[in-house]
């Protein structure tokens, strides 16, 4: 039986993919080498790791309104994560997800998703239902 995690209704299409998790925050401008598709900020817990086609699981979003444009631009170049899961999104990342039609959810009933989900977990994210399913583990 897979693990079901209930969250707030999100943005974007339902997707399935593999998780990349860190107890850290996110800004497309501050943290990413968007051309290479990897984390570039030396102090980020995912430094040098590729985010391409991953479902990122992070705590919150950092300042920097540029992410709202950058998510769409990254998606257009196929240099984007598949989805982003936050403990709590800020306005910019939600706006950026809406603009890019990128899957994004947050506000989980059971707590911080960076403690509930592990790197490598296979996830199904269903924004309309407000549901994330960990497919590879039993509840």
């Amino acid at each position, binding site marked *: 039986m897979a693990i079901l995690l209930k969250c707030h209704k999100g943005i974007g299409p339902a997707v399935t993919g593999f998780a990349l998790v860190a107890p850290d*925050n996110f800004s497309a401008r501050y943290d990413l080498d968007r051309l290479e598709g990897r984390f570039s900020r030396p*102090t980020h817990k995912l430094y040098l790791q590729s985010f391409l086609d991953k479902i990122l699981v992070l705590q919150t979003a950092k*300042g920097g*309104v540029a992410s*709202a*444009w950058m998510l769409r631009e990254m998606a257009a170049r196929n240099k984007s994560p598949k989805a982003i899961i936050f403990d709590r999104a800020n*306005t910019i990342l939600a*706006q*950026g997800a809406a603009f890019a039609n990128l899957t994004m959810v947050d506000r989980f009933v059971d707590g911080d998703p960076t403690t509930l989900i592990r790197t490598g977990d296979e996830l199904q994210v269903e924004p309309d239902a407000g549901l994330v399913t960990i497919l590879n583990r039993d509840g």
Partner: protein
Amino acid sequence: MRLSDEEEAMLAGEVGAARQWAIKHQIAVGGFFDAPDFVRVGQAHVMADTESLGETGVAWLEDLAALPKDQRLVRIPTITDPRGIDLACYKRLKQTDAMADIEARAIVAFEALGVLMTNTCINYQTILPPVRGEHAAFGDTGVVIYANSVMGARSNFEGGPSALSAGFTGRTPRYGYHLDAHRIGTRHFVLHDQPRDLADWGALGGIVGRATNSYWHVPVISGVTSTPSSDELKHFGAALASFGSVALFHLVGVTPEAPTLAAAFYGCAIPKATAISADDFAAFYAGFAAPSEKVDVVVFAAPQLSLLELQHLAGLIAGRRIHPATSLIVATSPEIKFAADRMGLTRRIEDAGGIVAAGVCFYQMYAREMAQANGWQRLLTNSAKLVNIIGGYGYQPTLASMERCIDSAVAGRIL
């Protein structure tokens, strides 16, 4: 979301494709944040540098600009954040013609939409400061936090597409800092040491931001013993927003919603205070320290400099000469640049070897490409916001006072 007849008409496409796209986007965002309805806004401020936009974003703007005039014009005053290129000096910074070309395309598109190219992140000092209670759709986190906190205006962080949407519709979803419920203080910090200059105020913003670390928390700071200037609060707010994603603070005895400590918490229980001491400031600076290292580029930006900052900088640098292996870049708004030219401040800075750029901000200027083209790595600045951002672009940043930055620029190494 509850929609008025006018909003339903926009959604149905009865007033054109731009307003239809805009309100659909706003409904998606409003739904995510459980907004009950829309609130009318007085101004919109759009962050849209071309590094962020990319070819995709510029082409998208050009599609909007190609709509019939009655469909494509914004309906409220809509202004722009700094651009990525100052066409007057981009070659001196080794930015490319390709960057200038895409910038020119973006400008043409924005002007076709009726957007005013103010190109500034200090619009609250130079263009049209909002008033207390005014709802706005501001981009640039530094603009939002200053407008919310110092002026008592009401805005969320609005990314470029959302701010432009507000320009088209004249409204924004009513959530977050448009609501009284979100403006109540939630964290309490008490100062046991006072900031002494702009870098210190930025450091304080970084310290409080790191500790707060949430868009949805409102830090309250007590213990300030003198009234800070607009520039000091500018650096404090910009760093607080950058390090902590914070959109509103209350400074007890200074900001309008915090005449007293109790008022900052709207009469709710006051949380236990976190003390900020001289040790906290020292540790913050130490995290970026690089004593005696060669300095490649000294930057004064983020936020753009006010006329008074430029006057102080010009006074420090006049009659001296920047080290030949060090670059010095200053970014300000077009209005302030014009005033600085007229008053001789630009000449004093450029005679010493600096560059005063207008309508840009350093981290929005293709910072990674500039670093590669110029061989820059060690960056020195008095902006705490900039040291937080620029590491992701491959720089090694150090924070120091304006005085130490200038002395180091002349010496060519960090003093």
